[in-house]
């Protein structure tokens, strides 16, 4: 491990470039052996949706993701970590969220990315509203109990 890892956390309306974000973590380094990326995209739900509108709590969204990222850095030997979450209107096929973890070995990178996504889903202050393709009024997406359970499994020490 070289020095303190400072996570990159960005909340933005615009899209992101996955390859550029990987390069940002790995550029000029020879100690990283594993990079895991998770990218969440907007689905159209069999043609039912024309878009998702992501509302967020400015300030807290950044702070909460930074807290989650800090916890990942404490738990796994990471050499780099990036979390980007979009807000505003996102159309089917477009990116919503990106997690990139870099480590010497794959296990830490995989586990940390998984942990980050589970926690983002249940703790990051974002809410999705559906826009229907047929023009009818869309509603707010319901939180899934399975997402809370997924976050809960990390409470037991995993290593």
């Amino acid at each position: 491990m070289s020095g303190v890892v400072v996570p990159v956390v960005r909340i933005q309306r615009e899209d992101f470039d996955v390859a550029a974000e990987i390069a940002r973590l790995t550029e000029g380094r020879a100690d990283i052996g594993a990079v895991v990326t998770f990218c969440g995209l907007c689905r159209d739900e069999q043609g039912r949706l024309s878009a998702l509108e992501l509302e967020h709590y400015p300030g807290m969204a950044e702070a909460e993701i930074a807290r989650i990222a800090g916890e990942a850095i404490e738990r796994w030997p990471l050499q780099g970590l990036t979390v980007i979450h979009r807000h505003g209107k996102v159309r089917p096929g477009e990116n919503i969220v990106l997690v990139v973890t870099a480590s010497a070995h794959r296990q830490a990178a995989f586990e940390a990315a998984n942990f980050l996504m589970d926690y983002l889903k249940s703790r990051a202050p974002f809410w999705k509203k559906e826009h229907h393709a047929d023009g009818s009024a869309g509603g707010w997406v319901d939180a899934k109990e399975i997402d809370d359970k997924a976050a809960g499994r990390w409470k037991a020490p995993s290593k």
Partner: protein
Amino acid sequence: MATKLIYFAWVRERIGKPEEDVELPAGIETVADLLRWLKSRGEEYEHALQYPDVIRVAINQEHVEHREKIAGAREIALFPPMTGG
């Protein structure tokens, strides 16, 4: 001292405003007290807070439980369970 309340998603839509400053009456000590008091402020609040157990709360931009004391809170946010990611 006025406390800033912020609402998100369907809590915001049902209450009909994104935020407001309120003077909390004496005796409102915890988040649960606040939710009970707000619910009594009118139909729109009653509609938004009908099932207080599902409402998530953040004080000064950090998640808290309903038993948390609200003394010293500058900003209290009320919102449904999160659906990001």
